[in-house]
């Protein structure tokens, strides 16, 4: 297949694309004059994919919480030499992360890019799990889980999700629990790997002062040719009940000031592509207009000393879930909640102002353009949108297409009492 080139005159960037016979898709954004080179190899598999039909089988299975993240750790294992060492010798920094919907492996380098790229593709495509190395990892991940347990921001966030969702696995901690990871075995890891690490379920994105021809040559030479291209992975999501599981959740732990998350669960889900991105943007516009640092709400509560500059609001979601989160620190979290709810009782026309809309739009356009300054931002934004079937280079157009009149309906539908949760972490008394 030929190379496809996308261009955008406003952004003044180009994007190259090619799909290989294996189904692997490769995107490249040249960044002339940049010292750093960046590659990210990502699979459409995250912590929420915990019930699925394994490749070659007929029945769906449910896997232990935290297995996608565990797999991410274990992929760094090689029969002979540690993969970290190989990258280090080439002067590159290798890393990986797992979130709700994907697992990504990445490196940044300033030299030896193509050798590093070869390593990246090779190690992600060659798992090596043994009973011994799986057992060893349990201790390390248990420490990672404990580190997050002591983080009040993480706890207030996951408590909020747990209260909000009855069934959807977004409520599960990404790393699982110290107990759940004990059930992870070599066999289960291979099952997950073989199902979700098929080239057709993956994307490789590269940014830097590099040559696409050379990139393609290296990948063609390195990629595994023996894996059969499979179509869609069969994922199972239990039906999520309407409304929220509980509307209030609190806990006490070592922290100085109470932390709060006010969450609105989205019921307008299962959209895809541009429609979904547009919905995300509209919701974020509303939140920015109502609660951003130039909003009346923010400034009133700030001056009353009820909130501080940690206060913020954003919408986040993927195809199967979504939620608005209004978060911060406050000595009076319940009062913040009351005031938020009071605001939503007002006539949407009266609180959403068109001048504010235009300004927020301008801010978003500037912010989006500036995000192209960093190869990391480009890569992370690209990957995040990609599995939602939107290319980063088309994002500006979607952003510009948002109109003021779209917002009113969205506000009325999304910000309703039935779907709200208040999560608080209190200091120990």
């Amino acid at each position: 297949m030929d190379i496809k080139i996308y261009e955008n005159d406003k952004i003044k960037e180009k994007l190259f694309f090619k799909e290989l016979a294996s189904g692997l898709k490769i995107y490249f954004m040249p960044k002339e004059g940049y010292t750093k080179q960046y590659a990210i190899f990502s699979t459409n598999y995250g912590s929420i994919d915990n019930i699925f039909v394994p490749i070659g089988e007929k029945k769906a299975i449910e896997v232990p919480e935290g297995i996608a993240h565990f797999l991410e750790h274990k992929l760094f294992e090689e029969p002979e030499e540690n993969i970290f060492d190989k990258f280090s010798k080439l002067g590159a920094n290798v890393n990986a992360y797992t979130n709700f919907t994907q697992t990504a492996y990445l490196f940044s380098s300033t030299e030896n890019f193509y050798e590093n790229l070869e390593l990246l593709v090779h190690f992600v495509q060659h798992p090596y799990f043994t009973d011994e190395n799986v057992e060893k990892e349990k201790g390390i991940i248990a420490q990672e889980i404990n580190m997050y347990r002591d983080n009040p921001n993480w706890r207030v966030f996951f408590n909020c999700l747990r209260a909000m969702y009855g069934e959807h696995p977004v409520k599960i901690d990404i790393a699982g629990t110290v107990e759940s990871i004990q059930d992870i075995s070599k066999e289960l890891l291979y099952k997950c790997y073989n199902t979700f690490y098929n080239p057709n379920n993956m994307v490789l994105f590269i940014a830097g002062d590099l040559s696409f021809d050379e990139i393609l040559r290296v990948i063609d030479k390195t990629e595994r040719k023996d894996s059969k291209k499979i179509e869609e992975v069969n994922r199972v999501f239990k039906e999520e009940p309407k409304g929220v599981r509980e509307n209030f959740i609190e806990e006490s732990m070592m922290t100085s000031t109470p932390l709060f998350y006010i969450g609105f669960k989205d019921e307008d889900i299962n959209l895809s592509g541009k429609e979904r991105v547009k919905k995300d943007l509209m919701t974020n516009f509303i939140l920015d207009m109502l609660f951003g640092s130039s909003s009346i709400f923010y400034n009133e509560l700030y001056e009353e000393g009820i909130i501080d500059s940690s206060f913020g609001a954003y919408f986040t979601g993927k195809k199967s879930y979504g939620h608005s989160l209004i978060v911060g620190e406050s000595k009076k979290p319940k009062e913040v909640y009351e005031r938020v709810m009071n605001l939503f009782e007002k006539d949407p026309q009266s609180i959403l102002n068109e001048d504010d809309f235009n300004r927020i739009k301008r801010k978003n356009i500037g912010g989006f353009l500036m995000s192209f300054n960093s190869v990391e931002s480009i890569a992370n934004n690209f990957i995040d949108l990609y599995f939602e079937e939107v290319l980063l280079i088309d994002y500006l157009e979607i952003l510009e297409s948002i109109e003021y009149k779209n917002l009113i309906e969205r506000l009325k539908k999304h910000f309703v009492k039935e779907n709200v949760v208040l999560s608080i972490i209190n200091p120990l008394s």
Partner: protein
Amino acid sequence: MNLKSERIQIDNGIHLNLIYTDKFKSNLLSYYFLRPLSKDEVTKNALLPLVLKRGTEEYDTNLKIQKKLEETYGANFSISINKRGEKQVLRFTVESINGDYVGDKDNIYEVIDLLKDIIYNPTLEKGYFRKDYVNQEKENLKNRIEGRINDKRSYALDRCIEEMCKNEKFSIYPLGKVEDLDGIDENILYEHYKNVIITSPMEIFYVGEYDAKLIEYIKDIGKIERKELLNIPREQIISGVQTKNMVSEDLDVTQGKLVLGFRTGIPYEDRLYNGLIVASDILGGGPNSKLFRNVREKESLAYYITSTIYKYKSIMLIDGGIEFQNFEKTIDIINEQLEEMKKGNFTEEDIEISKKSIKSSTESIRDSAFLISEYFFSQILSMDNRSLEEILEDIDSVTKEEIVEAISHVVLDTIYFMKSSKNQ
């Protein structure tokens, strides 16, 4: 691209540093004020940026400032208050879109005006700062100081430094002390502000595209009459250790936080400092380091375990998150690995890996306007005239002997451990 900065003195103790580049879609302007890190003024200094960002003569509320920032295509305004060695540094930065991308060439002038106004033309009431703003920001600062505990890892590092450097200025927390706040009001703070504006050494950075007109515009700081400049002495470096210190703190946490504080006695001006940087990286830099391999990969004791050099004070801290009962075992392994280093038990390959990693992160500075400004600022602070290329060469030329010599100067001073008697 070779990084070059043009340094122009624009007033007594005020320098403008210009770094021309057309690589980014934005431009960045940063003001740094330098103050001595001292008990007398640390809290007042920390409060200043918080009050200044509340309002200018023209935009007298946060709401108006925020609206202005949004109108200028989402210019990012930020402040920071921190310490570099025994200097307290106040930074005011704005990064904004290059006007070419939005068809608005003059956008940058509006952004510069706003930043200058925030610094030089605060909103006043009866000739002083506004009382309500000062009171609100005192409360916010208090919360931030008390909120240190929320990030357990950085809290543990800070606490180790406090204990280790008890009798040195470096122990002062850069956001100040809650006890000081009662003694500060709008008059006292405003008098202090006037003094800061006229006596602080200042560095201004501009990174982006510019022409003569823009330089003149930035240079014009109005009718400030600068007084005699503050002299901020270089930090004292203590080598050797008088008393070994062991501090533990009982908090309701799940994971123990271990921090080991060492004296290195090697000042950054010393050639051996390059050897120290490489030594610390071999010991506890990246995932190929001795500590990562032994504490994490071999013994599964920790998720993170690293070693860091604090440049201006020549100290080294090793920190890790562990189970409470693994305290002694972890310390034993750390000591063992340190001894291995002192005996020279590491390979040429280890050295190469560390050099590459240090050079690569140093070179990456070129890809961020903010890091470029921070890099030149740090060069000025340490009166280091080397170019980025020379710094890279110096790292490259470090020998095994230098690494061994550097690490042999490292002496343990303080052990800090955060644990929980309740969750044991």
